């Protein structure tokens, strides 16, 4: 029953989104607004259970009575359960292997990492945006995030997007002894990268030879855009196939085919 309702619901929403291709209409508006609300809550729930609960709460200190109060919630926070000299994982709180009496006498060990009070404080500071008087405190977590982004990306982009790309462009290993055609292909790639970089050169006027080279670079970029476009079309059509197959299954279910 629940499954049947679900399939009808999914089919209705699928058609509602497709109807947008014709024009904006109440069905699309309904689907769009439902989607916004459901997905906002979905990601909030997922963020809570996948990040805040295990990675933040799991590293903080909790009083013993709290850990015992709602085992379905706290077993993730408990790292070890000590029962009569035996060390069990936090799962033991809920997996039914221990009787409540044994659990009551067991010692719950929660390993804490004090360093995790930093994101807790920064996370709470972000909520000061709700209080206009001290809302400037929310700049602290923003500053933290930007600093981290800068330090992280500076290295990784220079490494994998720049150095590695040049190094693999002029790597002789795959070309040596492979004949003239392999060398020609290598040369095409090298020229493409070189002239492409010239196109991105900002502080010199693109005139004369420099301008011609930059134009060659543009041609390489266009070739690459065209190829990437054509390459992606297949995957996009597959997505549509998937939806049509689903609708086909739904219609087949109705007409008993």
């Amino acid at each position, binding site marked *: 029953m*629940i499954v049947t309702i*679900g399939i009808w*619901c*999914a089919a209705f929403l699928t058609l509602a*989104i*497709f109807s947008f291709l014709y024009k904006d209409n109440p069905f699309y*508006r309904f689907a769009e*607004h*439902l989607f*916004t*609300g*459901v*997905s*906002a*809550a*979905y990601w*909030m*729930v*997922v*963020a809570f*259970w996948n*990040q805040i609960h295990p990675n933040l709460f799991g590293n903080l200190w909790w009083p013993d009575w709290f850990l015992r109060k709602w085992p*379905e*919630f706290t077993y993730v926070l408990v790292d070890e359960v000590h029962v009569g000299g035996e060390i069990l994982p936090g799962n033991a709180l*809920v997996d039914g292997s221990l009787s409540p009496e044994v659990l009551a006498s067991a010692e719950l060990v929660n390993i804490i990492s004090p360093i995790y009070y*930093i*994101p*807790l404080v920064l*996370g709470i500071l*972000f909520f000061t945006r709700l209080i206009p008087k001290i809302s400037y405190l929310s700049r602290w977590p923003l500053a*933290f995030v*930007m*600093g*981290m*982004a*800068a*330090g992280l990306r*500076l*290295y990784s982009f*220079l490494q994998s*997007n720049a150095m590695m*790309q040049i190094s693999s462009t002029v790597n002789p290993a795959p070309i040596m002894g492979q004949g003239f055609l392999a060398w020609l*292909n290598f040369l*095409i*790639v090298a*020229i*493409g990268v070189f002239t*492409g*970089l010239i196109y*991105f050169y900002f502080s010199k006027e693109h005139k004369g030879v420099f301008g011609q080279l930059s134009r060659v670079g543009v041609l390489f970029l*266009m*070739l*690459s855009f*065209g*190829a990437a476009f*054509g390459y*992606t079309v297949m995957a996009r059509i597959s997505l*549509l196939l998937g*939806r049509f197959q*689903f609708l086909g299954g739904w219609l087949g279910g109705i007409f008993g085919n």
Partner: protein
Amino acid sequence: MLLKRWIPLFILIFVGVMTLISWFVPHDPIGGLGDNFSQFFDIIASFAIILGAANLIKLQGSKIFRRKRNWQYSIVTIVGFIITAVVGINWHITMGVLPEGFNYIAGPHVNQATSPFYWIWWYIFTPLSATMYALLAFYVASASYRAFRARNLEATILLLAGIVVMLGRVPLGQMLTNWMPDAIGFLRIERVADWIYTYPNAAGQRAIMIGIALGVVSTSLRLILGIEKSFLGEE
């Protein structure tokens, strides 16, 4: 001024420099800093989602109260949000009978077939996402119809590369050149498509990637040097 400007600026520069150093110093406690900071970011971003959701509800709510155009649909958003949030956060709500021997598991209840959260994910969220995604099949067609015009040399090259790769990837397209004898087999459309994709395309992509790397390096550097601080306001 201290709390508004200098402390955030200090945090930015300190965190940026420490993250950068942590790439080179494996020794504790610096070595793990980069990973720790990424983890902290995930936690902060998770907190932030709650504030974002509050903003969404506030805005949709005010639409309803002020009876703005299309306010009825805002009710759908709010109801959808509340139901999903409630069944998602409260792990005691289930639908149907639980399988024998099954224990409640907080959090991963999200993955249990009996939870209404799973139902919402599978019958509402997934078809909506998949259909929005599938709209792209139509849009690639209309975009290519409009833009793939041989206006000039650049556009012609874009057009030809696109068509050749598109045809080379399906048997129906490959049939166009299957008549070619093996001697000129390298001219078959799938071979040409492969060649374009492996060589000239790689060259273009690499040039773009290198350019992007330089852009990222210089933007990051401006941040760490404290030059780019628009988020601090002027006050």
